[in-house]
């Protein structure tokens, strides 16, 4: 655990070494997020309540997404690069260390821009999410569960390259699809799409369910969220560990 925390601290120090660039990217991302909030404000301004969702509900949804994405691809920036790392033989430097490889790989890289998301998400929730103590608690736990689901899903997709080759492009596609769907309220989508969002493109578990729980907490759905998130985490872990046996370390072009 100490190793993991130190790795993350080192990654932060590495990113922070160029202060101006880091801060600038964080700022740009915050601006980017604010414009998204602006879009929703403009939309609801003209359209009014849609299927029972008003602007504040959507802002809660968006804050969950920001926290989940901020952690998954900001702090744990390698979670979406596992495919690339495997294809380029860049897992070597971790595999020679006497530690569990996956936590180290995930924490050794930070993406400044998406850290901006992580900073703005809670701010948005506090401003627009009616932060009573209960809602804050559900928000934090729900976002964390969503994060775990997202990271597990990303690691799973990336680890697949250890089995089928490629550079993880499928994972990238899946991730971007999740991002799109996860930005809109679940109720917007009809039957077939909704099934998709609970399975192959698990946006429902990343933001949909957590946001619903903040609106309207219910122990059963909370349990569902937590167990599915844990399931994705396990899936990612197992796929990656099994995949390591087939790792070829980029040796295909430099033996």
């Amino acid at each position: 655990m100490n190793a993991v925390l130190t790795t993350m601290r080192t990654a932060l120090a590495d990113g922070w070494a160029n202060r101006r660039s880091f801060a600038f990217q964080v700022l740009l991302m915050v601006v980017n997020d604010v414009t998204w909030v602006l879009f929703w404000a403009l939309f609801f301004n003209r359209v009014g309540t849609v299927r029972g969702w008003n602007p504040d509900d959507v802002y809660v949804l968006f804050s969950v997404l920001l926290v989940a994405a901020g952690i998954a691809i900001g702090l744990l920036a390698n979670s979406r690069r596992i495919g690339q790392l495997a294809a380029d033989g860049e897992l070597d430097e971790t595999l020679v260390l006497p530690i569990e490889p996956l936590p180290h790989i995930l924490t050794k890289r930070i993406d400044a821009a998406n850290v901006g998301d992580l900073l703005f998400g809670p701010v948005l929730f506090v401003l627009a999410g009616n932060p009573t103590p209960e809602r804050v608690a559900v928000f934090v736990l729900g976002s964390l569960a969503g994060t775990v689901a997202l990271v597990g899903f990303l690691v799973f997709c990336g680890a697949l390259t250890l089995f089928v080759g490629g550079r993880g492009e499928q994972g990238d596609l899946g991730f971007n699809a999740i991002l799109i769907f996860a930005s809109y309220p679940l109720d917007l989508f009809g039957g077939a799409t909704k099934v998709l969002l609970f399975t192959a493109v698990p946006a429902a578990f990343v933001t949909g369910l957590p946001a619903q729980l903040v609106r309207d907490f219910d122990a059963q759905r909370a349990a569902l969220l937590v167990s599915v998130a844990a399931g994705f985490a396990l899936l990612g872990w197992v796929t990656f560990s099994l995949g390591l046996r087939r790792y070829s370390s980029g040796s295909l072009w430099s033996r």
Partner: protein
Amino acid sequence: MRPYLAGFNRGLRGAVVAPGDLTVRMTFLVIVVLVMAALWSAAVEANGGSIEGYTRDSLLWYVMAAQVAVIAVRPRTVEEVGEEIGSGTVAVQMLLPVSVAGLRMSIEAGEAAARLAAALVVGGAATWFLAGAPPSGAGMAMAVPACALGAAANIASQHAFGGIAFWLLDAKSTWFVYQKLVFIPGGMLIPLELLPGGLEAVARVLPFATMAYVPGRLASGHAEPALLAWQAAWLVALVGVALAVYAAGQRRLEVLGG
């Protein structure tokens, strides 16, 4: 003219030969069309069948054309131009006896043409499935060249923006913000008529509206030829600005010995 045509061809062929990239983009197009369809259906439903004269079906055609025009263009060009300038790669490019900006824009235009063709087919099919035939044949006929003009304007504008890196030197992540300018004042996410008065007026003055709003408006059944003229005018202006920015930057590099 010939080197620029050659650049265009190179871009075109490059995009066609990389089916992976095309497939990914088309998949996104379909996803976005689906999502927007869901959003605007719900929105129109909640507003008694139409908003600012747009029905659900015409809104879907709006979305289709706006998305097609934008998805044809690489969103990170601003950043890439900035990086080429910041890293000095552009100095090497300037050794060629052609306009760097002109050549670069031609190549990207070629790529965009390939993507545009694919997107029109895929996006058109998806939207037809969801919303039936386009509300106006004339509008749709004008929307196709409008998509091309909009994409071209987008490319030129990104080069103009990226060219600022000659002076600022750090363009990382700026493409996000640029993208949002196309999304909102550009009318890609939301038709300009739905914006509050002041914002709508500002958006109509900016060039971004020609990149998404115009093709969308035409495809949604409002066959207004003046829109095409407006696009053409902005395209010329933006290309001019891009070329000027690069030329000024080039002079600056020569002075600095960069």
